[in-house]
């Protein structure tokens, strides 16, 4: 394996700056290599510490990040992870998430460049959650947890610095979203009554895995009254109704985040995840008449001729095309809340397991130590 000093001699791999926090930050801001917040200077020593958790060749790209199609090498990713404030042991998860979002079905080009306000959301499952202390409980999508905050920030910095998601030239989002700073949460498997997300998506329970979703911010579902599965799911289905959702126009996979208390009520009613999805699919319909006349005439009657060419105002418009397109994860702490997370629509969720180079499921991030 090429050592770091050799790699750093390649053109553009490093630059000299005064050994001063403010000077390095001024340089980064000037070059646009930041999310606007101060960064940790990516010195050779810090980058090397990060790369201690990488079992791949440091200079070889693991993916190309759209829209610039910049080469995501471990070296570059490590520099961004240092800048974000990550601990070295987080690095395998960052590499895995970047690799997953560069797979074709995720459609990173569009997720990055669209005028929509989506950001790659990373849901983490498996033993790595405990090992890295990734928050799955109270405020899981919010601040206060180093792993969630900095893994997500490292991904964002890579999306900007390697992928070229520069506002106005590579990231055309009309608004952007706070989730573009960082968007990582773990599933609360201990308090979930169902199989975890990564198991539902085909991986063994003992695997550590991430699922990336081109997602909007969470939209809250408050239900303090319902005490039955049908009640909770009716409220969630009602919250899914959204005449302005991108998801309406694609075979989209919106994510339903169920708070542990809501999930328990639904499971106590005897419903499996698949049955909960079917209920939501069957109840999350808007009547055609709730859409604007222009949308009906120019979109529904044209794009879905078979279904809506002559349909009346009561014709149901499903928010998802089939039940199994819905994703469900149990996340969060105490409280009678769930959340609906719509997506960019033209993107598929990608789930990948943390594996060592020889193809084994990693038991621990220390499996990646050189």
């Amino acid at each position: 394996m090429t050592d770091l000093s050799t790699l750093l001699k390649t053109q553009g791999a490093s630059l000299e700056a005064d050994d001063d926090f403010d000077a390095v930050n001024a340089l980064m801001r000037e070059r646009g290599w930041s999310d606007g917040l101060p960064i940790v200077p990516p010195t050779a020593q810090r980058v090397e510490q990060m790369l201690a958790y990488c079992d791949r060749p440091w200079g070889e790209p693991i993916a190309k990040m759209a829209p610039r199609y910049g080469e995501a090498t471990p070296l570059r990713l490590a520099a961004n992870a240092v800048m974000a404030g990550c601990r070295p042991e987080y690095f395998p998860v960052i590499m895995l998430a970047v690799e997953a979002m560069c797979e074709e079905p995720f459609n990173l080009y569009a997720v990055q460049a669209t005028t929509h306000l989506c950001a790659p959301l990373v849901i983490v499952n498996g033993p790595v959650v405990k090992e890295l202390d990734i928050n799955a409980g109270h405020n899981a999508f919010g601040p206060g947890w180093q792993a969630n905050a900095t893994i997500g920030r490292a991904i964002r910095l890579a999306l900007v610095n390697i992928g070229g998601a520069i506002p106005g030239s590579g990231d055309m989002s009309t608004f952007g979203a706070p989730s573009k700073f960082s968007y990582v949460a773990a599933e609360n498997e201990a308090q979930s009554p169902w199989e975890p997300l990564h198991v539902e998506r085909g991986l063994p329970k003992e695997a550590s895995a991430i699922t990336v979703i081109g997602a909007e911010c969470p939209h809250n579902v408050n239900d303090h009254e319902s005490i039955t599965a049908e009640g909770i799911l009716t409220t969630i289905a009602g919250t899914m109704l959204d005449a302005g959702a991108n998801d309406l126009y694609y075979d989209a996979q919106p994510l339903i985040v169920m708070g542990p208390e809501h999930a328990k009520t639904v499971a106590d009613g005897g419903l499996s995840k698949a049955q909960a999805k079917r209920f939501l699919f069957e109840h999350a319909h808007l009547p055609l008449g709730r859409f604007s006349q222009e949308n009906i005439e120019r979109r529904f009657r044209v794009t879905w001729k078979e279904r809506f060419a002559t349909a009346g105002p009561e014709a149901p418009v499903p928010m998802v095309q089939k039940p199994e397109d819905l994703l469900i994860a149990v996340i969060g702490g105490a409280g009678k809340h769930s959340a609906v997370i719509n997506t960019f629509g033209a993107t598929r969720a990608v789930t990948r397991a943390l594996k060592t180079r020889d193809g084994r499921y990693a038991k621990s991030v220390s499996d990646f130590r050189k």
Partner: protein
Amino acid sequence: MSELRKRGLQAAVICSEPFLKLGKNQARVFGVPDLPLLLIPHPLGGLSLEQVEGRAQHAIPQVVELIKTSFK
């Protein structure tokens, strides 16, 4: 579009002003930095059919000019 350009065909992208930078960047990324970008007024969405025709009218002379130059 970049593939067509690389095969030697005349090709262009029609875009509105806010997307010019993205267009230029992508042309460079895909190895055709000289790909012509034909500008039309923004926006492209939320237009009446007459306004869509207006956008086309704006683009047509630029398309004609592009075809003419390719035969020079």
